[in-house]
């Protein structure tokens, strides 16, 4: 069914004015809610460790770290802000897949957008499309994936970040396919770490790997063209009940982003 290619085409072709107004408004709510969660998470012990780590190994000062005067290179900024944004477990989620999509892709998009001095329109479009691709993959992996012990936020979140950055930078279909290949082979994260600092690390690592995957592909780095549906791809390895049809069903007309939930309590699930 060429799932990987069709998702890449969707990302390459979709513009903000192709999106229904209610989707755009929901995307803004995701943006706002995540910023609040991140600003609230700054004083968490998890965030302090990440600040220390970035401060010591920061790299070029290209992108802001939330809650700090510190700037880091885009990879570390995505990592740190991803961790900070999920530190409280207060951020949005998609009920059927239990995925925290915004937390994995917005930090990646913001880091690259800041580095390249891009505008809010591009950021919002990238956020909405990153979330959409991520949830669709989560639906395709099915509930069995989560029950087996995979943290769906971590496995699919890398695609959210990769898709978001790829769309932000208007990458070609071929570049996006390669970016998916690079990110897909890094997809990991298990639920054994719930309740520890390593759960929010999943969101940060998704953002960081998304930046790496998209920017490497933009430079011409190559990968599998069928990372999702290939014989040894994610749908073979990470689940026993893959559903390719649901990934593509209504792509471009139906937006699963509308099903995202906002948390009234900073608790898991």
């Amino acid at each position, binding site marked *: 069914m060429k799932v990987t290619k069709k998702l890449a085409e969707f990302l390459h072709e979709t513009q903000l004015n192709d999106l229904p107004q209610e989707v755009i408004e929901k995307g803004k709510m995701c943006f706002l809610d995540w*910023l609040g969660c991140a600003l*609230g998470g700054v*004083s968490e012990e998890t965030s302090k460790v990440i600040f220390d780590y970035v401060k010591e190994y920061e790299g070029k000062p290209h992108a802001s770290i939330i809650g700090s005067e510190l700037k880091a290179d885009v990879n570390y900024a995505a990592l740190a802000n991803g961790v900070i944004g999920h530190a409280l477990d207060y951020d949005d989620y998609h009920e059927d897949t239990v995925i925290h999509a915004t937390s994995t892709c917005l930090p990646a998009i913001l880091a690259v957008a800041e580095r390249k*001095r891009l505008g809010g329109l591009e*950021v919002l479009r990238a956020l909405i499309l990153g979330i959409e691709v991520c949830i669709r993959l989560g639906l395709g992996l099915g509930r069995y994936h989560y029950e087996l012990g995979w943290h769906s936020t971590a496995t699919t979140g890398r695609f959210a970040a990769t898709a978001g950055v790829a769309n932000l930078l208007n990458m070609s279909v071929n570049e996006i396919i390669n970016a998916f290949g690079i990110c897909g082979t890094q997809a990991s994260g298990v639920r054994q770490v719930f309740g520890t600092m390593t759960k929010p690390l999943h969101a940060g690592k998704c953002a960081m790997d998304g930046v790496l995957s998209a920017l490497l592909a933009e430079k011409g780095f190559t990968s599998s063209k069928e990372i999702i549906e290939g014989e040894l791809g994610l749908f073979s390895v990470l689940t026993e009940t893959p559903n390719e049809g649901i990934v593509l069903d209504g792509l471009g007309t139906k937006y699963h982003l509308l099903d995202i939930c906002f948390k009234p*309590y900073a608790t*898991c*699930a």
Partner: protein
Amino acid sequence: MHGTLGLLEEIRDKYHPEPDDIEKIKIETGHVAFTAAGNKSPKTGREIKFSLWYLAALALLEENVGLDKFVDEKVHDPRVIKLKNKVDAHLVDSLGFGARVSVIMKNGEEYKRFRPKQKGSPANPLSTHELIAKFRNAAQMTITEENTERLLEKIKSIEQISDITQVMDLLH
């Protein structure tokens, strides 16, 4: 857990059940709450977020299950421990994130609540007002009230922002 907590808070606010007079707290909820919040014996404050039993006790004991409740002190609080031991939780797969709760008192009285969809879901959404209040409370843990309001305005019309650094500069 959001389904369960909302219902227990409603019972707390309406009936004010005295913790010592509670016989049992019966909770039915779906699969995710049982696996993601399935930690029966949290060792740290952070792990309380993942413990249906502790969260249920906190919802009845405290004014709110806010960020300040996920601290080590609560793990060892005798009031919390006593009440969380009264929680009788059952997995009912069909409930999803929804919940059915019942607080049974020693005198036989029973306070029941059921809601198929948890607060914050599209079927039972946080209002714009509630979402903005959540944002303000969380944001002001790190930035000034003035910058919080400026940030709110920027996100409302984010398409008009020509350079995202205008947003990033407000985040510290």
